[in-house]
Every structure is written in C-alpha cells, then in structure tokens.
C-alpha cells in the first residue's frame, strides 16, 4: 500500500480543507471521543495532520495524560517528538487524543469519557492509546504519535484495524512524555500504512540532549526468514482468535518458515512487568499534589499533608490502585522480593528472547480475545485484565520493537497480529508489514478528510 503521506502531499486541496476537517472531526468525536483537544484555528498549508496522545506535552495545549490531576496543565514547552514533527514541515498538529489515565489500562476505559471503537462504538477502543487508534481509524490522512508502556500501542491499534508501531526502547526521545514507567515507556506511531509509520519514525527518532536514555542511534534492517510462534503464549488465546491466527500463519507460510517453539519464561512476564511498572509509576505520581500545575486544590491554609491527601483524591481508581501497590513493592522490607527480583527476571527475558529473535521474528495475535464490549470490560477484575496483556508484555518488558497489523475482519471488526524483532532492528518490522500490505487491503468505516 502506498504512503498516505505522499499521496496527500501530492494532491490539490480546497482552501477550506482544514477548517472543514476540524468541523467534521468535532462532530464525529462526539460519538467516539478520540480527541481530548481538537485544534480549530489551524494554519496548516498542505501538511499532513498529526495527533499526539494526551501524555505528550504540546506547548500551549492543555495536556492532561487523561487525569483530573492534570486538568488545566498547559505545558510551556514541546516534547522533543512534537518539536521534530513541527520542524520537519510536512505535518500540522490537529489535536490531543484520549487515553487511560497516565496510560493505566488495556481498553481505554480508565478515564472520564472513554474513547469508543471506530468500527462500532459499543465496543472498547483498546488502550491506553485509545484515542490515537480511533483517530487513525477515523481520519483518512493522518498519523498519530502514540505511546506504549506494556502494549498501549499494539492493543488499540489492533482493535481499530490500524498499524501500530512500537520502536525499540530508547530509539525515540521521551523528553516531554508524561511518565508512567520510565524504563518501559516508548513513544511510537499509529498510521494507516507501514510506509507512513516509517516516515514519521525517521522524523522523530534519534539522539536528544534532553533524554540520556534515548540511546538507540543506528536502526538496522536484518531480514528474517523465520516466524516463531510461542507455544506457552498461544495457549492463552481464545479458540476463535486462535483459528483466525492459524489462517494467517497458513498465508505467511508461503513466504516464511513457521516454527512453534517453547519459551517457558514468557509464562511469567506479566507479573514482573507490572511490578516494575507500578514501582516506577508510584514514584512518578508523587509529584501531583494540587498546587504546582494542573488541578489546583487551593486550600492553602491546610497543612501540607492534608492538602496533598485531599488533592490526590482526584486520581482515578486504577491510578490509586497502582500507587498503593507501587508503594508497597518499593518498601525496603519487600523490595528484594518484588522489585529487584522483577528486574532480574526482566534480564532473563531479554536474554532468552534476544537469542530467539536473532533467528527470526516472533509472531502472535495481539490480543487473546475478540474485541470486547465496553460493558464487558468494566466487569473484569484487575488480574483478569492484566492477563490479557499476555502478548504485548514480552516485547514491552524487554524493550524489543514490535508492530501490530490488521490481518482479518470478523463480523466487520478488525483483528490484529503482532510481530517482534531484535532491539534496534525496527526497519525489518516495517518492511515485513509493508510487504503484507501488498497483498492485504485494510478497511475502514470512516474516512474523514478524503480528497
């Protein structure tokens, strides 16, 4: 499939294209809630619209990370990725997209007004980059700067039938990204084609003097002939998903050698992932106290401990849960048992996956279940919910680049699969899916901004 960016830039547009686009987006948004902020007074001139997840700072635009605690926060600076997109010249900012509070969620429902699936608004959009995925599925010409900690790009991308690319940890600067878990957070891209994702990746990636962890400079394109399926993980998939996935493997089998392998350690990736994520998150959320930015508690005559405690009531349920758990995990008396142990297991996972990924890609469904209805997701317990991240957590905890692509439509809802490669071999993923797009046409229900 050709690049939408190129197609768009090479096409005449009426002078009121951007204002009409904003109007229509506004209307559609009232049903899907993809955007928290839509920029209406755009000065765009033949530039591709791009959106940013609401945890990426845009100068002068209210950026809340989906949290009441940050309501009113207007960053006085741009995140490095935003700065680079604007500087490049081909892109214009159209708005900030909805998300689970601070990125805490698999389905996008942990926020005040959840985004809804672009194919059927009764269904979950997926999370935590819910709005990024829905926006990409609504807009014909658009790219989304999204972010993933443990699958927050893959999952919503799969549920909305778009390409979701999560680069190697440290390939893209996190400066200006409102932290969830610093050693896991990765800024990535959603688009309607892999070429578009590649184009944006080349604009935003690379060394930044404001983020020392942005350390992956050289991106390779080592092609792989093998696709590995991990037995322990595939077992966790619902039979309906499994049978669709088998059909995909049949198709891919013509080009790639498909091998089922066992990797025991991946049955235990979710626990260490959440331990690390919560430990780091609970420190990142300490700063939200109702007086420096965002929500203003205002009762300055209250003593600071009471002031903080009152102000912090504005965190949502999942945020509170993770703060308490993270605080527990960090306690000196249990830290070795949970936090340090989880970091050691992370190293085991990196070692074992690293070995396998030298030989080939790892492929799996993105989500183990068909797209759920919002009402059903609300009934899940946290542990049931966390367990659904089974396919997205292994690459996330190991910092491996991964990419979700749509491969089938069942009852007119898209289904996605995810491939993983070695650290810094990101281009190989984009090449893989570009090739896939040559023989598979992505479908959308909405095409706002068509020419």
């Amino acid at each position, binding site marked *: 499939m050709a690049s939408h960016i190129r197609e768009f830039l090479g096409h005449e547009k009426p002078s009121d294209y951007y204002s009409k686009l904003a109007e229509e987006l506004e209307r559609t948004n009232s049903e899907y809630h993809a955007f928290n902020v839509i920029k209406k007074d755009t000065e765009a001139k033949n530039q591709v619209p791009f959106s940013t997840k609401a945890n990426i700072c845009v100068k002068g635009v209210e950026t809340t990370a989906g949290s009441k605690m940050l309501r009113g926060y207007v960053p006085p*600076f741009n995140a490095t990725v935003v700065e680079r997109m604007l500087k490049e010249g081909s892109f214009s900012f159209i708005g900030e997209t909805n998300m689970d509070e601070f990125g805490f969620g698999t389905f996008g429902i942990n926020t005040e007004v959840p985004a809804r699936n672009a194919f059927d608004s009764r269904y979950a959009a997926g999370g935590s980059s819910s709005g990024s995925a829905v926006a990409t599925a609504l807009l014909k010409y658009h790219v989304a700067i999204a972010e993933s900690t443990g699958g927050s790009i893959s999952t919503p991308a799969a549920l909305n039938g778009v390409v979701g690319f999560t680069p190697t940890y440290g390939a893209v600067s996190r400066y200006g990204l409102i932290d969830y878990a610093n050693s896991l957070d990765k800024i990535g891209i959603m688009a309607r084609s892999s070429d578009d994702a590649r184009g944006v990746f080349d604009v935003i990636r690379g060394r930044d003097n404001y983020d020392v962890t942005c350390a992956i400079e050289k991106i390779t394109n080592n092609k792989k002939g093998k696709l590995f399926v991990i037995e322990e993980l595939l077992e966790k998939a619902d039979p309906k998903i499994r049978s669709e996935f088998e059909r995909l493997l049949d198709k891919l089998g013509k080009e790639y050698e498909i091998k089922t392998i066992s990797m025991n350690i991946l049955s235990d990736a979710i626990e260490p992932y959440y331990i690390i994520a919560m*430990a780091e998150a609970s*420190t990142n959320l*300490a*700063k939200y106290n109702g007086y420096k930015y965002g929500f203003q508690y205002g009762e300055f005559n209250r003593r600071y*401990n009471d002031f903080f405690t009152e102000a912090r009531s504005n965190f949502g349920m999942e945020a509170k849960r993770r703060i308490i758990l993270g605080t527990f995990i960090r306690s000196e008396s249990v830290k070795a048992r949970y936090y340090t142990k989880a970091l050691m297991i992370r190293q085991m996972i990196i070692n074992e996956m690293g070995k396998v990924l030298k030989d080939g890609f790892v492929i799996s469904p993105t989500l183990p279940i068909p797209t759920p209805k919002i009402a059903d997701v609300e009934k899940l317990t946290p542990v049931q919910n966390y367990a659904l991240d089974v396919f997205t957590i292994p690459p996330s905890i190991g910092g491996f680049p991964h990419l979700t692509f749509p491969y089938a439509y069942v009852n007119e809802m898209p289904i996605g699969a995810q491939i993983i490669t070695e650290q810094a071999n990101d281009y190989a993923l984009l090449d893989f899916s570009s090739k896939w797009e040559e023989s598979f046409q992505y479908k959308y229900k909405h095409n706002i901004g068509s020419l």
Partner: protein
Amino acid sequence: MKIGLEVHVALPTKSKLFCSCSAEAEEPNTAICPICLGFPGSKPMLNEAAVTSALGIANALHCKINRNISFVRKVYFYPDLPKCYQITQTDGSVGGEGYLEIEGKKVRIRRVQIEEDPAQIVREGLLTLLDFNRSGTPLVEIVTEPDITSEEELRSFIANLRSILYYLGVDINKEIKADLNISLADIRVEVKNVTGIKSLIEATRFEIERQTQLIKEGSPIARETRGYNEKSKLTESLREKETDEEYGYIYEPDLTTFDINGMGFRQAVYIGEIAEKLAQGSDLNPKTIREITMLDSRSLELINKFKAEYKLRSIVHAIERYKKYGGEEAPSDDVIEKMTKLVEEDKIITRETVQDLKAGKQVAIEYSKLSGDQLDKLIRDFLDKNPKIVAEYKRNSKTINLIIGKITEKNGLHPKDVAKRVVEILSGY
C-alpha cells in the same frame, strides 16, 4: 560518646545538577525550567562538572572511587520537593570507605554522594512561599561513621573539612547543612537540618548536655529525630520522619549507570600537612600557618613563592596586615613582597603604607627620633587621655601590645623604643 554527621554542601557548578539553569540567581523563580520544577514530561541530564567536583571531594577524603555511579529516587512528600522524590545516591555513589584525619585520628567517611537540593521555602505569616531557584542545585552529602567523640573533635573535623573543601572550590563558611546523630548511651538521637557551622557546634553542645542531664537523672533517652531551633538554641522533638521503609528507594530510570572511570578531578590540598611541613625549621607554629592559609588559597601561593627568600614570619605578617588594610582586592605579588621587606626591616605597616603600596607609590618609612623627654611626654599624654586603656592594662598586662601599637602608629615611632618606656611609665600609674 559517638557523633556521626551527614554534611550537605553545595557543589561549585555554573548550572544546576540536572538542567542548564543557573545555579545562582537573585530574583525568586527566575532561574527555573521544566526540569528543576519537576514538570510532567521533563527529564534530568546529569551535569559533568557536578560529577568531577564530587569526585575531587571523595578523593580528598581518601574514599574508594566507584567506577560506575547511578542514582536513586528517594520518595517523600514536602512542599519544597518538586517531584516529591529527590534524585540522590545510595550504593551507586561517587565514593565511600574513606577518612578525614583530625589530630592523629581518623574519622571514617562512609559515603560521598551527589544529590539535588529542594526549593527554598520563605515563610510569610502563614503563607508558604517557594523559590525554585535553588531547586536542583547540586549538593554533595558526606556521611561519616559515628567516630567523633567530643565537641573538640567535632570542631577539628569541621575545620579540616572546611579547608579541604575550600581548596576544591567549596566554601562551607557560606553554607553548610548537616544532620547529626549523637549517642551518649546506646540510643541514637538524630538532629536534622542544622544550618551553619556555629549552629552545628551549638546544637551538638546542647544535645550533649541534654543527654548528660537525662542520664544523670536516670531518665530514659528517646530514640528520636530532633530539630535545632536557632533562636532558642535548643533541639526539639520533630514530627515523625520517614525511614528507608517509607522512602522506598528505586533506581532512577531516567538516568543511567555512568562510567566515570578516568574522569579528571582537582587534587586535594591538605592544609594541615602543609602547615606542619612549613612550620618545620621556621619560627612559626603550624596553627598560625594553617589559620592564614585555610580559607585563602592566595595566601598559600604567596607563602610558597616567597618562602625561600624571606622569613616565614615576615611573609605571614605581611599577609595579615594586607588582610587588615588591603580591602577586598586580592594582594599582588609585588605588594606583598614590598610589605614583607618592610617587615624584615622592622618597620611598621599602617593603613597608609598598604594604600600607598597598592597605588604604586614609593614608601619610605623613617622612624621619628625623639629625645627621651619628648617620648615620655607623648606617652604620658596618651595615657592621660585614655584612662580606660590604663585600667584595662591593670587587669590584663597583655594589653601592653595594644598601647604600644597605638602610640607608635600615631607618631611613626619605632616600637622597640616605645616599648621600653611605656612599661616603666605605666608602673607609676
């Protein structure tokens, strides 16, 4: 008695520890940015100069230097702490297992670590006003083992530390913050956030007396954290302080484990040892030399430059006179050399002498020669006009030097001439 210290001193960098804001600014909240305000989205970038400076300190304190350093987040909630966690160091600190020598004894240094300073709190009535200019400025924390056993040793420790740090560009006379732990019995009492050398000594003295009294009375000493009140000069029990259990340290994942092997740093200058060496074979004691060089690297330079040519005593005297009369400006080699020569010629150095020398004027001091009667009259006139000074002399004969000084300076006389007569004349008063 066991006293341990955690001393916090500011590192001499231009910019802050994790951002490029100036480390010094006057107007409140002018040297601030998203990083030192802990704004959502900001990330720290470690200042190279803070590391080299801390390395110099660790080296001067004979610490084992770590090849790799890393940082941790120490979580606690206070209005002056922008992120509500402080970026500091524990196991991955710059160095540890060192010592500082005080009069033949070693006070062990457990650790030297880099950390960020919180904001400055200004209280106005009931309002808490925050100035983030200080937020994120680099500190080094020096943690000792509880090896100090008296107030005297504490004074020596601080004096030595002060001179070592001075020669590394850190002046703790300007600012020092310390936490003390003092145990007379087996119970450890902590005194937190003591600011300034004077308060540090006073807080220690008070705490020693308080604990001594409790022991005498047979009352129990509580294991607690106390604060020092500078106004009342008392230590008082503080709100509950967090423990390591609550701080919940984790690795700072926005930074990395820095390889600092081979990084350069300033070498230490041990004034105590240097003073000992200089004093050998000279007519001065080491203490005098230490005092003049301790907080003035220029003095040491001048001594080293002229010690081969002139008597140490003369150089030191010249420097002392310059400090008294020469103003803020650092002395030039030339001025000090001329002054030293004058001292060696037994001439008196007055304010005018120093001013003239600084202005590049020729100074030729000729002592007035007076007849015995004229001299006696001059002395008697002075004594008659200053009965208080005479009374003071009767109580304490050491004040004779003051009297001689006043008379000679005023009249351009040779002190030896005056001294002889003054004692005789005074005996008649």
